[in-house]
């Protein structure tokens, strides 16, 4: 912690990493400047159609976060900007930023889009990877935040049309680049990556053959907002393809083009694209050409299995030498060499190149200016035991700038980097944030409704297609409407100022705005209501633009009639809306961490660094967990020394209390207010805490095959690790390492992720230390993802022999007179080979520990079918549970490496601090409430609630408002109408129905 630190953080890069980091920081009491070079935030994830392995719609899951970032009072967006200068010391940095001329005033621009519809100049649509065109004045994508256009100065000819058309007067042809100086306490860099340019592999024909596309181009083809509006079409002729090939490792695992590492995500995204394509068009026949199928992430192996068995995706293990085009048809001919050495040729309609990640040029420039080191591959240099730190103190990193990774890992690192960046400046928490003072809310209960209706022209977007003055006159005639007016732009700053005056002048106690969509504009209008002294929920919106004028452009009369109905519906509901307030609950500002291994200790220290007390509960008699059995990392770092340092820090930290040899007997309460009783040897300790971090780890399973447990020379990878640490002499001996022992099989279908790299690490250590030793690795797919690929490469150079086997022909181990005999089918030779080994070393599966289920029940959090804890959302909430206030870190989530565990532990600390950094917790305003007189306590609502927010107490249902998310499922399910959702009560929805159907209210 740095005294006199500046309570602000600079986050560079507005992709999903930057957004997550910014939200965590802003919700923990820090000011955030979020900088992006693009005119809007969103990054690569905004371009994706679906996300694996759940096939969630990318925009659907991302849009709420976009909106949260855009309207957060503690986050300042600095878009279309670049860092130019950087100096200072940790806790107090000064940053110089160039804000590029946008030629549109983002404050004045309402995002209505008239300019872009009329602009006569086309430009390449880079968001759609150049596959269609946008205009010289443009919005990055329809849901962009900020919702403000920009002029592409390189294309714009300055014809003046947009300025003439823009009724909001937002065009600024005289705009100039501007230098902004910021003071911040710490920095997070997350500029992301670039896709490998497939033109660097000319043999695959990208850029020469129209029907060879890159994977990101195909992603846009699949997207509903893409160039072909989600029709899967060939670029050459607009015809639906039947045979589509994906070629893996384009620009990955390929020293020839300078990329010797694996890009980690391409195998799974190719599967996703194949599955989604087939969902779009069932006649598509997808084939994926690959070397090793690297579906190592949580749930990925099952995704692979489903793609193959249920969707009929064909997987072909081979090397592709080149792609040729049939010039007559633009079909493509793929020549490839099968595993057993045959050359084949096959015809396809479309070829997708699964391009890898490369370091971006912009990120290199940024690193230079901020003064952080890069690796020889151009990614940010990080230490495996300190995963989110850069070489410069006070500057942190997350996401693919530090190496290829998928979205959940990016999100984990983002939260992790937020924990580190805020830990450094924790003393400055709450110094630069805080809303403006608002007038007290008028008590309008019991008052007759006095409704004001504001109808927006939105320039010509509404007024051009709907009779707005007629609508105003109509609104005036509706019950209890005492004021109605029209505005050119209701959302513009000057209108909003008058809005407050009008509310006060007419003593309005209900306000309706008929304009665009509440999804983007409701918070703005609600805050204006608050400024006028009204409760924010005395507000209704009628969406007469996005869902009326824009979609019925040629039908003025019916569009106007529909707008009348929409306004009438809002007025109907406004008669019975009520002020709502967020329930404030006290928070015990401390944490309980379950598990004292690497994840638990790391999370505890990170929370303590933020200034909060932590209790660690460990059932073992000592701290350290699995780390006690690991001696070196893949990079060669000394794990035991690291563990000693970590344990010493935990024991020395005055804010951390350790309870070893203890178990949890009960946990009562909910977010902010937990009360846990520990049992250590009969005596009970009671701990009060606000949040829980689950860090219960995983265990190495005990193999039952390959003579394990029967023959002393059949050992596990952990045994080999220990032998190497103890200096066992392996010179001259032959080792057979067998992978996937108990993983990727029917009874345990997931991949254990770390075993390939571990085996390669140990194999390398053996051959490097004992050059006359012989090591065989028998594997199914070599999953040395990311930069670990280089270890695999090195092991092969050093003479480690890798033999692939198939699940239906597993190796056979037998004890003979001479020693151990291992027989395995070599798929390249097509015949069995026999290895006489001195030792057989097994890589057993990583399994969930006993006790997960009991803990899950205590905390009311779920496990997945493999027995690991199940997070709230596999993509965007990887360390949260759907139960508020409970977080997840380390191998309790799924098998992972030390660095990954550390990042996730920091992330859990960051997420925990968004709650315990405040002395109160605000529940949603639109929570459910029970009428005890009507409730008979049947419990149906308890079953309907996805968040465990309802329980039966004294014969009635009781809502824990802190946990309620306001979905209303309980209200729709209740047998008797005893439970109602505030703001969406039955009567209120009925009033909308009535408003829609009855001309007279």
């Amino acid at each position, binding site marked *: 912690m740095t005294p006199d630190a500046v309570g602000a953080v600079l986050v560079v890069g507005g992709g999903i990493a930057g957004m997550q980091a910014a939200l965590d920081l802003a919700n923990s009491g820090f000011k955030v400047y979020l900088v992006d070079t693009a005119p809007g935030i969103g990054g690569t994830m905004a371009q994706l*159609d679906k996300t694996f392995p*759940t*096939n*969630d*719609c*990318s*925009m*659907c*899951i991302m*849009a*709420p976060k976009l909106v949260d970032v855009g309207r957060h009072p503690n986050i300042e967006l600095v878009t279309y900007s670049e860092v130019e200068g950087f100096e200072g010391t940790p806790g107090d940095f000064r940053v110089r930023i160039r804000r590029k001329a946008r030629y549109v005033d983002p404050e004045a621009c309402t995002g209505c889009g008239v300019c872009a519809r009329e602009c006569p100049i086309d430009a390449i649509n880079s968001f759609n990877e150049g596959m269609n065109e946008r205009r010289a004045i443009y919005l990055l994508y*329809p*849901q962009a935040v900020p919702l403000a256009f920009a002029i592409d100065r390189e294309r714009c000819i300055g014809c003046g049309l947009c300025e003439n058309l823009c009724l909001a007067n937002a065009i600024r042809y005289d705009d100039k680049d501007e230098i902004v100086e910021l003071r911040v306490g710490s920095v997070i860099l997350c500029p992301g990556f670039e896709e490998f340019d497939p033109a660097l592999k000319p043999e695959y024909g990208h850029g020469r053959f129209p029907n060879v596309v890159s994977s990101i181009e195909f992603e846009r083809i699949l997207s*509903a*907002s893409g160039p072909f509006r*989600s029709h899967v079409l060939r670029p050459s002729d607009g015809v639906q393809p039947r045979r589509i090939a994906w070629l893996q490792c384009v620009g990955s695992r390929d020293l020839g083009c300078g990329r010797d590492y694996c890009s980690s995500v391409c195998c799974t995204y190719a599967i996703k694209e194949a599955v989604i394509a087939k969902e779009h068009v069932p006649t598509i026949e997808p084939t994926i050409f690959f070397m090793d199928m690297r579906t190592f992430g949580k749930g990925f192996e099952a995704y692979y299995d489903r793609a193959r068995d249920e969707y009929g995706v064909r997987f072909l293990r081979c090397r592709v030498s080149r792609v040729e085009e049939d010039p007559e048809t633009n079909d493509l001919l793929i020549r490839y060499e099968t595993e057993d050495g045959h050359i084949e040729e096959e015809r396809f309609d479309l070829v997708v190149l699964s391009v890898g990640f490369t370091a971006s040029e912009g990120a290199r420039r940024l690193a230079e200016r901020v003064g952080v080191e890069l690796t020889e591959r151009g990614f940010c240099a990080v230490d495996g035991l300190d995963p989110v730190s850069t070489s410069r103190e006070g500057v942190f990193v997350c996401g693919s700038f530090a190496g290829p990774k998928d979205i959940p890992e990016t999100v984990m690192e983002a939260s992790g980097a937020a924990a580190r960046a805020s830990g450094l400046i924790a003393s400055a928490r709450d110094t630069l944030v805080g809303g403006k003072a608002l007038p007290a809310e008028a008590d309008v209960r019991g008052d007759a409704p006095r409704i004001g209706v504001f109808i927006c022209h939105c320039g010509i977007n509404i007024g051009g297609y709907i009779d707005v003055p007629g609508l105003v006159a109509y609104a005036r005639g509706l019950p209890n409407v005492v004021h109605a007016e029209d505005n050119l732009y209701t959302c513009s700053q000057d209108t909003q100022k008058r809005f407050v005056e009008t509310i006060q002048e007419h003593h309005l106690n209900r306000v309706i705005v008929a304009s665009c*969509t*509440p*999804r983007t504009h409701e918070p703005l209008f609600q805050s204006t209501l608050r400024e006028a002294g009204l409760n924010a929920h005395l507000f209704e919106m009628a*969406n007469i*633009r*996005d*869902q*009326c004028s*824009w*979609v*019925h*452009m*040629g039908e003025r009369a019916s569009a106007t009639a*529909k707008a009348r109905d*929409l306004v009438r*519906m809002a007025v109907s509901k406004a008669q019975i809306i009520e002020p709502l307030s967020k329930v404030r609950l006290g928070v015990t500002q401390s944490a309980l961490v379950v598990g004292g291994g690497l994840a638990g200790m790391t999370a505890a220290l990170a929370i303590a660094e933020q200034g909060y007390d932590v209790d660690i509960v460990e059932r073992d008699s000592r701290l350290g967990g699995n780390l006690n059995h690991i001696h070196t990392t893949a990079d060669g770092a000394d794990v035991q020394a690291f563990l000693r340092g970590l344990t010493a820090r935990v024991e020395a930290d005055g804010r951390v209390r350790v309870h070893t040899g203890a178990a949890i007997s009960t946990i009562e309460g909910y977010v902010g207010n937990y009360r846990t009783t520990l049992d250590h040897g009969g005596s009970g300790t009671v701990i009060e805490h606000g949040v829980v971090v689950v860090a219960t780890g995983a265990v190495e399973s005990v193999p039952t095959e390959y003579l394990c447990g029967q023959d002393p020379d059949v050992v596990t990878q952990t045994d080999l690790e220990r032998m190497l640490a103890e200096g066992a002499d392996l010179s001259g001996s032959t080792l057979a390492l067998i992978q996937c022992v108990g993983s990727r099989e029917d009874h345990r279908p997931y991949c254990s992720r770390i075993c390939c790299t571990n085996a390669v690490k140990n194999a390398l250590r053996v051959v490097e230390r004992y050059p006359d030793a012989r090591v065989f690795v028998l594997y199914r797919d070599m999953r040395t993802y990311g930069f670990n690929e280089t270890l695999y490469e090195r092991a092969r150079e050093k003479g480690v022999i890798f033999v692939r086997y198939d699940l239906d022909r597993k190796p056979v181990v037998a004890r003979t007179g001479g020693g151990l005999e291992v027989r395995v089918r070599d798929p390249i030779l097509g015949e069995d080979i026999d290895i006489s080994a001195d030792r057989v070393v097994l890589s057993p599966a990583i399994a969930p520990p006993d006790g997960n289920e009991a803990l899950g029940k205590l905390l009311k959090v779920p496990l997945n079918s493999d027995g690991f804890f199940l997070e709230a959302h596999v993509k965007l909430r990887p360390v949260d549970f*759907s139960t508020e206030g409970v977080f997840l870190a380390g191998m309790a989530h799924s098998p992972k490496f030390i660095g990954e565990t550390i990042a996730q532990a920091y992330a859990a600390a960051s997420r925990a601090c968004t709650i315990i950094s405040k002395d109160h917790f605000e529940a949603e305003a639109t929570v459910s409430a029970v009428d005890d007189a009507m409730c008979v306590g049947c419990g*149906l609502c308890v*079953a*309907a609630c*996805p*968040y465990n927010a309802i329980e039966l107490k004294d014969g009635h249902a009781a809502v824990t408002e802190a946990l309620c*998310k*306001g*979905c*209303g*499922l309980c*209200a*729709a*399910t*209740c*047998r*008797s109408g005893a439970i109602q*959702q505030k703001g*969406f009560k*039955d009567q209120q*929805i*009925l009033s*909308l*129905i*009535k408003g*829609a*159907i*009855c001309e007279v209210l």
Partner: protein
Amino acid sequence: MTSWEPRILGFLCNWCAYAGADLAGVSRVQYPPNVRVIRVMCSGRVDPVLVLEAFRGGADGVAVLGCHPGDCHYLTGNYQAERKMAMASRILEEVGIEPERLLLDWVSAAEGQRFGEVITCFVGRVRALGPLSGVPGASERAAVGEGIAASDRLRWLVGKERELVEAGNAYGEVLDADAFREVLWRNISVEHFRQRVRAELGKGPMTVGTIAGALDMPPRDVLRIIVDLEDRGIVHSGGMDGDSPLYVLAGTGGECR
């Protein structure tokens, strides 16, 4: 050419379908102006009673649009919607309103085009069915349907359906989905019967025979329902008509109203 235009209510979930409808606007996707949208946080919030109420009020069609399966912002809300709307659809069929007037579909936040297609298609479907007022006594039928949807027994069963056919019942047995639906459908018919008897009794005190005649039902079945309603305190006997007891709806007070 008729001047009649279908009047359709759309219940859209905030996170996917409503966002998809907004995107349709941003993308200027044109579709017929017949739908009036009610935004709910989750498609699972749409109570079958609300759907029936819309028909009772005169809506020609109701569309409930949520997130695609697996995408629900509230984890399971759209699965709950699926079961509730299956029940609503069956109730419509039971009371003699075309179930095709009710649509449950999924539209993601990225599917502006698809939103337009779904609406265009549904408006066409309702247009082909004609005005709801073409169904004799439509409003009364919907009111009876609303009573069915409000029945606590059915609400219990439909609320428990997912648990019983996916996780298991009180004995740890997972019920067969089709068999369960049969139970549910049978209960809808029984409840319908009960609602009709109640509706008939709403006109005044009556004997079993009168009700049976009016509803064209076997007197034996009517008697069973009356006895059941009496048990639940909904109906009580109030005087005699010759040898036959007269029955009165509780709370209407018989003679006072």
